[in-house]
């Protein structure tokens, strides 16, 4: 099965669960994609969509966040796009070692590394007028 599903959701946390559900349902139509990998993709999408919603919230933007699922015979690619001010994905601050007492002072900053961990490919393209995160999972792996 191949096709595209595109969502335009308000940048409100109430819509996160729906985004996860739709992406999970789309990914489940992919041949041989194990439930564990679908769960991983749902989590990665939650991370990307959370970042997008926060980017809009911090900037006072009322634009909607776009989540686009592109399903082919061999893979699913989910793009999460926002209109926030962007950031440099290569200069994310590193977190203190887990044994350091300072580690507990960092409640955020885990999302991008989780996305890389959970997908086959995570591509972050960020500019002054927005960020697009592409999350790619290959079927049959």
């Amino acid at each position, binding site marked *: 099965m191949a096709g595209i599903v595109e969502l335009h959701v308000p940048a409100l946390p109430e819509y996160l669960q729906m985004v996860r559900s739709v992406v999970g349902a789309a990914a489940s139509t992919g041949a041989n994609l194990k439930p564990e990998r679908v769960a991983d993709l749902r989590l990665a999408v939650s991370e990307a969509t959370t970042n997008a*919603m926060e980017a809009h919230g911090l900037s006072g933007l009322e634009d909607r966040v776009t989540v686009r699922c592109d399903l082919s015979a061999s893979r699913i690619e989910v793009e999460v796009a926002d209109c926030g001010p962007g950031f440099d994905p290569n200069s994310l601050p590193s977190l203190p070692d887990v044994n350091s007492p300072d*580690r*507990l002072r960092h409640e955020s900053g885990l999302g991008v590394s989780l996305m890389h961990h959970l997908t086959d490919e995570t591509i972050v393209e960020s500019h002054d007028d927005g960020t697009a995160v592409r999350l790619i999972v290959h079927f049959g792996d």
Partner: protein
Amino acid sequence: MDFGHLADWSSVLSDFRRSVRNQWVVLALTGELDLGSAPRLHQTVVGEVASGHHHLVIDLSGVDFMDSTGLGSIIGALRRVRSHGGDLLLVCTEQRVLRVFEMCDLDRIFVFHVDVDSAVGTPVRV
């Protein structure tokens, strides 16, 4: 698809149940712990600590999804109770939730129990 008109999805977000067992305040969460529900956990923990309850058990048995925002609220809870000489124990057996701790290497700084009985059997350090 444009979903801006849709009604309330918040019913799927986490709910909380509070109880006190031995000297532990047990906060049992159900649902999903993410950007929508994490602020409520944060506020609940702030309220407990302000009321002098520094020994908390967060029961994640009923949580079927947690992302890094949810994890961040639990990190904050641990820091908050420890700063008051207290402690935080977690009850969690859901592999998908445990995996988030593991992927972030944070399973090493939390104490996990398989059920609430086990957690509240832990002596409170005064």
